[in-house]
């Protein structure tokens, strides 16, 4: 067993660490306060190739491996979770489906723009009536004369409404299978398609600078070739996308947990009470020791899940374990980081209060903690 990262993996991680420290962190407080989408940062990331890490060079990607992409996400997420989720939703949910399931023409048409960061892309699975029960999709599409006519609604869709967004890929019911189950197909809906309307961004507890929107489809028509892969493959496709996405969310959560630990450690060495830095008190040291340990364990779990995937082995259970453990680790780390800051941690001036708000959604997005436990239990 060898835990050494390759030279490229280290370089990508180090670059992202520098980028997050110099280009993201200084703006994190303002982004959170204004909820303004960080166009300047996202464009810079696109120019560096950070929005197309795991895609082949022939489609404009960097040709890096999946673990490199996760390492990058950890570091970007350590700088700011809202920027991190923008990168993750674009890469894992937006662009990956084209890479894995798109036709050559679709890859040329869409993936090349997404991998270079010229455009962002969204993936719309969740609906008002279909959250954890993601197969409960009610949005439906009928094929008439070579055209899909879509009706329905999606909610909580990341990256759907930015100025850079090229469109959304949605799940839709396109019929019934022989066994009576819904036939689900993924359809590509470019921005500006008549009948497709994008609602105002939600006001959120965290990840504020990320773009999250409700979507509505009213007799929205796209040509038959906007089907991603084969008809009826939608369910299988998004299950695979979500497995990959969970490893990525785990990495993002480790970044946030690490940021909580960094702040808590630095503060505990500075803050003096009873004539000593609070880091001299064992009660504080034990919290920091637990945080350091859990961050490292969570990191190892996403490394392992990513590694299994790169080896071509099944990784779904490990992906759920990584996502669940990393997001709950980040929650505990955020909680303890605020505790270590005392009253200051409750104030907006201190990043840990923002981390505490940001972390909650890590236990919800791309499958709640309950869903992860169900998925793990099913595979025991």
């Amino acid at each position, binding site marked *: 067993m060898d835990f050494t990262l390759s*030279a*490229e993996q280290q370089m990508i991680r180090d670059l992202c660490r520098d980028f997050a420290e110099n280009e993201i962190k200084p703006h994190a407080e303002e982004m959170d306060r204004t909820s303004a989408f960080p166009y300047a940062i996202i464009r810079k990331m696109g120019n560096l*190739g*950070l929005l197309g890490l795991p895609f082949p*060079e022939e489609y404009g990607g960097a040709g*890096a491996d999946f673990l490199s992409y996760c390492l990058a996400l950890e570091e970007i997420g350590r700088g700011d979770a809202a920027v991190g989720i923008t990168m993750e939703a674009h890469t894992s949910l937006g662009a990956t489906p084209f890479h894995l399931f798109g036709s050559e023409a679709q890859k040329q048409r869409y993936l090349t723009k997404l991998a270079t960061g010229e455009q962002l892309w969204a993936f719309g699975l969740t609906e008002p009536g279909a959250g954890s029960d993601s197969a409960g999709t009610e949005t439906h599409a009928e094929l008439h004369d070579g055209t899909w006519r879509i009706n329905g609604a999606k909610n909580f869709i990341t990256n759907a409404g930015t100025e850079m967004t090229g469109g959304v890929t949605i799940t839709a019911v396109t019929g019934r299978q022989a066994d009576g189950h819904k036939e689900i197909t993924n359809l590509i809906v470019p921005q500006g398609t008549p009948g497709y309307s994008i609602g105002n961004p939600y006001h959120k507890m965290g990840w504020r600078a990320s773009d999250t929107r409700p979507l509505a489809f009213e007799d929205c028509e796209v040509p038959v070739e906007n089907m991603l892969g084969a008809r009826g493959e939608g369910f299988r496709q998004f299950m695979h996308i979500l497995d990959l996405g969970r490893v990525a969310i785990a990495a993002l959560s480790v970044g946030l947990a690490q940021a909580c630990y960094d702040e808590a450690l630095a503060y505990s060495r500075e803050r003096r009470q009873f004539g000593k830095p609070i880091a001299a008190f064992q009660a504080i040291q034990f919290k920091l020791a637990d945080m350091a340990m859990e961050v490292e364990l969570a990191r190892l779990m996403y490394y392992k899940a990513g590694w299994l995937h790169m080896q071509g082995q099944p990784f779904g259970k490990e992906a759920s374990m990584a996502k669940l453990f990393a997001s709950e680790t980040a929650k505990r780390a955020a909680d303890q980081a605020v505790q270590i800051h005392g009253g200051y941690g409750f104030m907006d001036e201190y990043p840990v209060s923002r981390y505490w708000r940001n972390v909650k959604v890590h236990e919800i997005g791309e499958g709640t903690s309950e869903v992860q436990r169900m998925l793990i239990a099913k595979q025991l």
Partner: protein
Amino acid sequence: MNIVVCMKETPSTTAEKSFSPDMRLERRKEDAIPNPFDEYAIEEGLRQQEKHAGSTVTILCMGPATATDTVRKALAMGGDRGVLVSDDALAGSDAISTAHVLAAALKKIGFDLVIFGNAAADAYGGIVPSATAELLGAPLLSYASKLDVDGSTATIERQADIGYNTVAAPMPTLVSVVKAINEPRYPSMKGIMASKKKPLDTFALADLGIDPATVGAAGAREKALSAEKVSTQRKGEIFIGNEGAADRVVAFLVEQKVL
């Protein structure tokens, strides 16, 4: 134009430093980075290459065998190839020995323009550029905050406290640059992925015709005696009272050249 950028491998500025009993910095591979001052030299080399079509950029480094990774880190920013001069006999080299080796390597590679950072973040001697120029019999345009290459002449602006000089030299020439000259780019992901495919040659002393007895610890005329940490104790000054305190704060900031 044949551009060569000299780059030293240094420990990351945040890494814990330790020394062997004979006062050599103990270098750990995982802490190694391109000397931060040299990033400005690399950036300048790349900018000159972009301005002068058909130019090539070579990264030249003298260092341990493991410094290939650091040369590749530099190549991730850009450039065409790397040259590492590495030999067990080089351990413990002083600045003059380093200059001998770089001069010999530069003669072998050939150059029109050689760019250095103005010092290395670890030893901070700052004389390698001038010593190398002397050994090559070439001019050195030192402390450049701006560089223009026009035909066979290189012109720099040299930043001073209250202004700058404009200085020119015929090519081939050496230039050392200061941080004000540019803002080094981040390596792009494609640059990182491409860096491992770029040619990287390693030369030993024999390849450069250098007698091992004249370099390394054997040939060193400089000897480090000790290394101490700068005391990081903060030196605070407190101005109290309504009257004049603000003026004194302003005066202090002006004195510190903050304002």
